[in-house]
């Protein structure tokens, strides 16, 4: 505690270390440093993080969690309810639903990750240009974003899917592009703030090249709030991806994927509800966990 009182508030550091503290005053800064360890032990956060790690392991080493083959059908075990041998029951072809869920994790997570990467990279470039260059560039980018926001994200994704065709990669691109607009807004606002800093002016007068200023001086300071947004958008990306694959535009038929798992169980809802509701619940839990972790990143960071 005492060293916190003695040390002066850290200014914006051109090397980027102070980036996260940039937006906070010294008082909040101390409170954050005090509360951080306690918040990390908050039960909601711990459970959420543990669950996400489990899901990550499903994606990395699915064989650890289930001995069933997700493609192997068994005519003698069709539409069985959940039991100790089949945790989530079996589908209409007698395939183990839990095995399909676990093996489908990789596709869903990779697709969401690809979507976020696309959104993040493109919006970083657009946000940096709009915020730093300003003027006509800012106006042009701003108008396009305004218009894109007038069409709901799902419809933008569906348009892209129509043009690009179906499949996991294409829906990732579609979801990624449809979230560029909201990301760019946040990035631009941050860049506008950082641009005023003295070290940016100093770099400009020192003759540092344009792209170097953006990359080394502006970007690292503008990135922190966007990082929290990325964590939050991870849940949204999973929702969008599973909605698109629920509608039938995702990975091709036999390949397991969360959204298509829910969709394929839909026809048996009346007498085998577990096929849809249980995988659907897993999607909800992952989204909730991702949101809880995102909030924590926002608070601690």
């Amino acid at each position, binding site marked *: 505690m005492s060293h916190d009182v003695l040390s002066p508030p850290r200014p914006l550091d051109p090397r980027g270390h102070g980036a996260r503290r940039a937006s906070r005053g010294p008082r909040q800064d101390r409170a954050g440093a005090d509360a951080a360890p306690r918040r990390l032990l908050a039960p909601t956060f711990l459970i959420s993080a543990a669950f996400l790690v489990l899901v990550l392991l499903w994606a990395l080493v699915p064989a650890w969690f289930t001995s069933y083959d997700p493609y192997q059908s068994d005519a003698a075990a069709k539409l069985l309810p959940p039991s100790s041998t089949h945790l989530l029951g079996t589908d209409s072809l007698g395939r183990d639903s839990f095995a399909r869920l676990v093996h489908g994790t990789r596709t869903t997570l990779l697709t969401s990750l690809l979507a976020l990467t696309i959104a993040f990279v493109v919006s970083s470039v657009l946000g940096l240009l709009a915020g730093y260059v300003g003027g006509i560039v800012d106006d042009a980018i701003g*108008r*396009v974003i*305004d*218009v*894109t926001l*007038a*069409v*709901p*994200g*799902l*419809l*933008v994704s*569906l*348009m*892209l*899917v*129509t*043009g*690009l*065709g179906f499949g996991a990669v294409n829906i990732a691109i579609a979801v990624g592009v449809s979230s560029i607009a909201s990301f760019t807004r946040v990035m631009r606002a941050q860049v506008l703030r950082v641009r005023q800093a003295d070290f940016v002016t100093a770099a400009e007068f020192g003759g540092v090249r344009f792209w170097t200023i953006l990359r080394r001086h502006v970007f690292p300071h503008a990135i922190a709030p966007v990082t929290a947004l990325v964590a939050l958008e991870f*849940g949204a990306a999973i*929702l969008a991806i*599973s*909605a698109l694959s*629920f*509608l*039938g*535009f995702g990975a091709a038929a036999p390949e397991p994927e969360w*959204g298509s798992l*829910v*969709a394929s169980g*839909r026809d048996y*809802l*009346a007498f085998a*509800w577990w096929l*849809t*509701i249980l995988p*659907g*619940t897993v*999607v*909800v839990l992952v*989204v*909730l966990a991702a*949101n809880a972790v995102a909030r924590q990143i926002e608070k601690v960071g």
Partner: protein
Amino acid sequence: MSAASATGVGPTSVAPSAARRRGGPLLRYIARRLAYAVLVVVAAYAITFALLWWLPSDPVRIMLGGQGDAGTVDPQVVADLTAKYGFDQPPPIQFLTMLGNALQGDLGVSIDDGRPVAERIAQVLPHTLQLGVVSLVLGFGLGIGIGLLANLPRSRRLRGLLFSLPPLVGSLPSFLIGLLLIQVFAYGLSALPAVGNDGIDHLILPAIALAVPTSAGIAQVTARALDESVKAAYSDYLRAKGISRRRIILRHSLRNAIIPATTLIGLSVGSILAGAVVTETVFTRQGFGRLMQEAVTQQDIPVVQGIVLLCALLYAVVNLLTDLVYPLIDPRVTLR
């Protein structure tokens, strides 16, 4: 709109009458909002053009994809189609032609069944409008109700619990809400039909499925606005006068807290239109959401484009109306 701005009071007009002075800014405000709405719709149409017709893919190939193997298609057919849709023209010309046709109500012809797109959309539109209006009203009622409920209890813990409810609901995939409703009310309780679209009882479940995600956002905003307004100085004053917390919220804070919720109408219309794609598919209801799903499945580009244009149009109109009504709800907002 140019007519409207011409009648407005410009900086050069000499000694305007009192009536014109009052009417001028309003007309100019309306004109500017209207111009902006038109701009948004045209620009949205340009984006649909860029994404659907101009993307790396070949629209002719996509159109023929459904009718057989692309390799077996007669090159003459390809050339005819290319000429028919004007793909041999440069993109800007293609866009202007398309925009001109759209302004005359001609949205092209569906690739799937050869009927005009406008006709196909008009046929299913009433179903979606019915569903949309019901779920919008339901969503606002539910959202404001939950926002209100989250502020009423004395217990801090109960309030915290109610405050955390809307974000939780927001994390539910829309298809799961629909499927849960079907499972519980249609198959479990046999109270309501699961699929189809005639009569009021077929409307209830899909309307709830669409209203729930909409209400989450509204509840969040209302709850926060109410909370702020309860903590405002005028509430302390009322409190000191001996008025109960409940009465302050219902009589004084609610009026202020509803204002931020009204700004969400445009956004909610957008989310309901997008949600209709999923919900109408889940409930096998007719409507343009399901038409959209089918059109994307068949890569029926003109239909997809028509639906997106309609959504942008609805969004622009709703936002225009909200902008115009806003000063009436909140007298502090001045027209500019």
